[in-house]
């Protein structure tokens, strides 16, 4: 019984160390598939948080700003995030941190710029034979 009380006391002491509330981002494409190359970034933070390749999820509980400030997520904290991935449109969102169950699903739309190449705008010039005027 004495051992049990000691374990409980130690557990409480460990809980008092400061940690932020974890916020989980889940980045998916329009079909619901995780985007393995997505990153999450706070506008003032230089580091980008990569998602898990398999799940498309990233867990963030604190921000580390360039001036050395550590911003721990707390209840009621309003945060801005930009989620991007190569080949997808950027998403900017604001999230209010709750006490628990902070799961933020993000859906990114495909950015198909490759299909833009070779369109009507892209003229296909006729290669001349090195003269100003073609021969009649």
């Amino acid at each position, binding site marked *: 019984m004495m051992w049990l009380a000691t374990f409980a006391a130690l557990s409480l002491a460990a809980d008092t160390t400061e940690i932020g509330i974890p916020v989980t981002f889940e980045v998916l494409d329009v079909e619901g598939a995780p985007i393995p190359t997505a990153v999450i970034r706070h506008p003032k933070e230089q580091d980008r948080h990569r998602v898990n*390749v398999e799940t498309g999820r990233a867990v963030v509980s604190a921000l580390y700003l360039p001036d050395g400030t550590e911003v721990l997520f707390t209840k009621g904290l309003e945060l801005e995030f930009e989620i991007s991935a190569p*080949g997808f449109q*950027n998403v900017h969102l604001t999230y209010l941190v709750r006490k628990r169950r902070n799961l933020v699903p993000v859906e990114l739309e495909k950015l198909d710029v490759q299909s833009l190449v*070779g369109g009507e*705008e892209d003229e296909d010039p006729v*290669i001349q034979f*090195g003269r100003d005027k*073609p021969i009649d």
Partner: protein
Amino acid sequence: MTTARRKPLMTALALWFVAAPAHAGWGDFDALFAVLPCPDGWMACETSAGGLSPEPLRDGSGVPLPADLRVGWFDLAPTAAFSPFAAMAARSGSTAPQADQAAVAEQAAAKAEAEQVAAAEAQRVAQEQADEARRQREEAVARANQEAEAARRMSEQAASASAEERARLEKEASAARERAAAAERARIEAEAQERARQEAARAEAERMAKARAEAESARKAQEEAARKAQETSAVAAVDPTRPAPAVSSDCTDLTKLEPSSLLGTLTPGQIECVEKRVATDVKMTDKDKASRLLMSNAFAKGDKEGWEKLVKRHLEEINQSDPDLSYKYALVLSKMGPGRAAGVIKWSDVALENKTVWTGDTFTNRVNSLYKFRAVAAQSLWQKAETDFAAEANDDKKALVEKHRNSTKVYAREWFEYAKVAGKDATQALQLCMSAAGTKDYCEGP
């Protein structure tokens, strides 16, 4: 003149006669009283013609005359002072006593002194009058000079004012002439461009018609040749000793080969000959022409792989200055996926270096397309690097991801900025830029 008008004049003359003596003083009659009328310089004397004193003489008519006048003013008769050599009359009477002589001498001295004082006074007055006259003259001269100077300044101001006005008018006229000339130039250029466009369209239509005709004739020739070949083979089958017809592989005149190259119908012999010219011609312009023939032939034949090799050789070894060619090559490569993305970026850059060859809409469209090719190619490289990194994370792949992401960011921003300025749709460019940068702030700039 009427009596009414004459009456005031007469009244004025009468008043003048009455009033004039009233204005005269004793000073006006100084000339009538000669102080020393005698010929020997005395004040009074007796001459053979009579006595002389400062008292005025009277001529035959009784008119008073100055005593020193030698002849009468009105009758010209000689007066008592006529002859300067007239002997003086002997003086009678006693000599004045010494005291009287002293008094006379004193009076004479006083008189002389008075005369000297008067002379000095007269000299002083004359000097003052001369000074005054000189001062007035100098003032007049100075005034005249000032007036002349003012007049000169006014004339200069007037002249400068008129010069400024003239300059302003000339400037306005010059600006108007320049505007008119610019408008005329613009009109001429627009006409020239329109003519060039029409000419190009006509030439293109003719070229297409000619190409169609040549294709038709070539088809017929091929059919004919095939028919003849069948006949020849038939004949050869019958007569194996008959030689095959010779095919001309001359490429001395490259211009004559252009129609065939446009149709992709250059014979292997002609291609070999042109290839030799590319390799052996000394002048780069000749190499350029020969290389263009080969490229055109390969493109018309649909030999994209061969065309790509020829274009690459042309651009790398012969000439990079044709932006059309670099652009076309970049366009073709951009459709070949991420594997050719590096080439797309390289040749887009080369074409952009020579973009000044283009004008008008051609310039705008092609420059926008080149920026797009580059950004899209960089994005495909970035995407591939991200996928590779996701599959196997290591520092090298992470560095490669950052490199391509940064390239995409930079190229997409350049595309966005140009599209925005050129009036093109910049939506995709902005999305691509934001995708790479992760933030809108970087792409839209300050």
